[in-house]
């Protein structure tokens, strides 16, 4: 993949050594290059933004910086000194700490305990708690960020924003460990905050700059430009450039994140002409409400791919699972080909010809130790049984036929699915819904997650073939680019509701920025 944007900023020679520097970081997982030569410099007393699409490698990079992931190659320097970070404790010893996206506080302990957890110092003497000392230690930390939280409040009684303050206070404890200004990594800290809380957080981030360096990760580019001094952009596991925030607009960043915009032909644009007389939609959803989504209306026609996009907490994952009966609904009506669809459980959905490919393939999509054949025929019993009995011959010929048809690379049908590569695993999971020959609606929750480009492209082709054969598809794509490339229509969700719908025909595709506007 070519880099279209040269590094736009000359690295101004810093007056002092950088607080943190990363050179040539490489991390491979089986079948995936998570990091492919990442360089990053964090100067002292700087807020560095980190931007990138989903799957660009941000998470892996951050985990590497705090010792949770061991890189295959590359060097990490802290204040000019090369270090090896083998655990989160070692990272803390070097003054690097992270505020995790999913908060990492013990909910049933007090805020004070959480702040000093693991380095209680004078708070605990010979195993005995000194609650006074502990509260004082915690108060010191909270004072640094001018927070008024009661240190002895139980953490799970605090609001989300307050807990985030507790986490920041906790991370700042590493100052005591390393005796240096710390590097604080904030991983998507704003994703579930209200706008007022975000303002408070930004005040804190600016305050942190006085005595620490900050790496700030967010999906919201306007926030990054608001609070950071400089932004580094990752794409497909590579550093693609850096910009100073002054004079940069979100669109510039976004272009860097998604790279060349005209190269989505590998998504196989829809080629089939849709007949003009609009038949009744295959799936109709009317005012469907659940835990995280409300009053959702959605139509999907046979042969159509509808992508649902949205940020964290938009409710699209729960909506997708609800359509499969795997998530409770509170109100609304859903019909499939005119008949009401029973959402009480997954079995009813399967029987009605609905298929679901979950995002967590290894946990929810497949049964790892079981064979390819068993995984493929778990759902559709008629396809492999004669009467109530499994017919081994029928099963074998069916499975072999689909292995052949989808070019699934496996030694044989008896191989445990966990031994296949991710792309082939995903093809088996998809085949599970196809072997019955009665699939009418496919719900694809991040079907290409964790797959390399080759495997992705195969899954795209398969999806396209299926839709050309009349299967209706609801897609939660891994990236906006993917959604735009594959979908006939895009539904944008925001805060649990459908914000807007964008037609997405071949040749007149919207740009990611058109969608981003509606998402936030």
């Amino acid at each position, binding site marked *: 993949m070519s880099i279209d944007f040269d590094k736009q900023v000359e690295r101004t020679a810093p007056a002092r050594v950088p607080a943190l520097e990363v050179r040539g970081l490489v991390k491979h997982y*089986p*079948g995936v290059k998570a990091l492919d030569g990442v360089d990053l410099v964090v100067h002292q007393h700087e807020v560095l933004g980190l931007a990138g699409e989903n799957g660009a490698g941000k998470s892996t990079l951050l985990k590497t910086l705090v010792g949770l992931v061991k890189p295959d190659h590359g060097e990490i320097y802290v204040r000019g000194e090369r270090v090896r970070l083998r655990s989160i404790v070692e990272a803390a010893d070097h003054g690097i700490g992270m505020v995790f996206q999913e908060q990492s506080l013990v909910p049933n302990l007090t805020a004070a305990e959480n702040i000093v957890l693991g380095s209680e110092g004078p708070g605990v003497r010979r195993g005995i708690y000194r609650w006074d000392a502990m509260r004082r230690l915690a108060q010191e930390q909270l004072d640094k960020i001018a927070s008024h939280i009661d240190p002895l409040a139980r953490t799970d009684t605090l609001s989300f924003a307050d807990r985030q303050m507790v986490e920041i206070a906790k991370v700042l404890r590493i100052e005591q460990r390393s005796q240096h200004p710390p590097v604080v990594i904030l991983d998507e800290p704003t994703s579930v905050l209200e706008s007022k809380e975000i303002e408070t957080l930004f005040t804190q981030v600016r305050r942190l700059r006085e005595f620490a360096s900050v790496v700030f990760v967010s999906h919201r580019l306007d926030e990054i430009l608001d609070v950071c001094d400089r932004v580094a952009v990752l794409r497909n596991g590579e550093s693609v450039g850096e910009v100073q925030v002054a004079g940069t607009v979100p669109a510039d960043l976004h272009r860097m994140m998604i790279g060349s915009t005209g190269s989505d032909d590998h998504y196989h644009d829809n080629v089939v002409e849709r007949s003009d007389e609009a038949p009744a939609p295959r799936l109709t959803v009317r005012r469907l409400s659940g835990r995280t989504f409300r009053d959702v209306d959605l139509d999907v026609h046979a042969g159509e791919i509808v992508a649902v996009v949205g940020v964290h907490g938009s409710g699209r994952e729960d909506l997708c699972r609800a359509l*499969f009966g*795997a998530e409770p609904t509170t109100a609304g009506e859903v019909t499939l080909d005119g008949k009401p669809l029973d959402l009480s459980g*997954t*079995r009813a*959905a*399967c*029987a009605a010809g609905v298929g*679901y490919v*979950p995002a967590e393939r290894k*946990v*929810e*999509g*497949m*049964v*790892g*130790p*079981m064979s390819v054949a*068993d995984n493929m*025929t*778990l*759902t559709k*019993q008629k396809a*492999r*049984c004669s009467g*109530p*009995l*499994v017919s081994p011959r029928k099963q074998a010929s069916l499975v072999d036929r689909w292995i052949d*048809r*989808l*070019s699934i*690379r*496996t*030694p044989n049908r008896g*191989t*445990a699915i*966990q*031994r*296949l*590569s991710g*792309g082939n695993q995903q*093809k088996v999971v998809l085949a*599970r819904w*196809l072997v019955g*020959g*009665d*699939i009418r609606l496919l719900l694809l929750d991040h079907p290409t997650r964790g797959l390399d480009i*080759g*495997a992705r492209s*195969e899954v795209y*082709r*398969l999806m396209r*073939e*299926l839709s050309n*054969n*009349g*299967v209706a598809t609801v897609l939660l794509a891994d990236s906006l680019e993917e959604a735009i490339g594959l979908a006939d229509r895009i539904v944008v969700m925001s805060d649990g509701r459908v914000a807007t719908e964008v037609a997405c025909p071949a040749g007149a595709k919207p740009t990611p920025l058109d969608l981003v506007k509606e998402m936030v």
Partner: protein
Amino acid sequence: MSTPVTVKPMAEPVVVGRGPSLADRLTSFMPVIALLALLTALTIADPDFLTRRSLTAAAFTAAPLIVLAAGATLVVLCGGIDLSIAAMASLSTVFLALWLPDLGAFATPAVIGVAALFGAVQGAAHVLLRIPSFIVTLGGMSIFSAVALVVSDAGTVPVVDDSAISWLNLYVATYIPMSVAVAVIVVVAISLVIKATPLQSWVRATGYSESAARLAGIPVDLVKIGAFCVSGACAGLAAVMLVSRNFSGNPSMADNLLLPAVAAIVVGGTAITGGHGSLWRSLTGALVVTLLRVGLPIVGVPSAWEQILYGAIIVAAVALTLDRSKVLIIK
């Protein structure tokens, strides 16, 4: 609808993960090896052991254990555990002893049916109330014991006319005790039914990965309730065997079979984490445990060591067969 889909194959390694290692294979044959080693050792320690009499005695002891373990194995394969089997069997002995005079030959199916029903109720409580299986069955154990105490008035219920169940004490082909034959038939029958129907993949999928099984549209709840139901029925059958040997029912008759049964399951190599294992393995495990039981006195070890050995074996066998990739945090 046939979906003509063609996808160009990619150049990538065919197989990513490692296959089973030599150690894994050895572990999977461990029960058989242990069984043979025990037989050999016992024969050396006491050359008379391989006579018909002592083997028959061992077989009679083994029969109820095999049945108990076989039933509970299904629950373990689904990823749960049934700690109530022994108490259920004890309760069933009391029921059988009480019902034999009135129901005669029908007492046996009645007892098995009631035990199956109780098992199913436990399964339903586990599934519907979302209570961990070990706590449901621990509660069940306590309740069954209480019921047994109450209906038997905390005493032994003698069986005067055992003609309806004495057939279990006959011999097949003059050498094989009927109860053992029945136990083996039960194992074969359950295994065959599972193997020949989609149940095999349903049970294993439920045990290996319940959420994946549910999202594949498998009736996970029914599978689990069914497993508990079969487990209960097997406890009922074990009770029939016990009554036929002891000519009485007692509210604590089978209580000391819980540990041996759990030991049989885990020694057989069925993983306590679910999915991996089989009824055959539990049959082998039950034979190993039985040989230990009858063998320890032969080599002159006080029977008190039996308990200690069960304890150690359970922990060691679970440690060997546990699927650690599944549980990141072990509680």
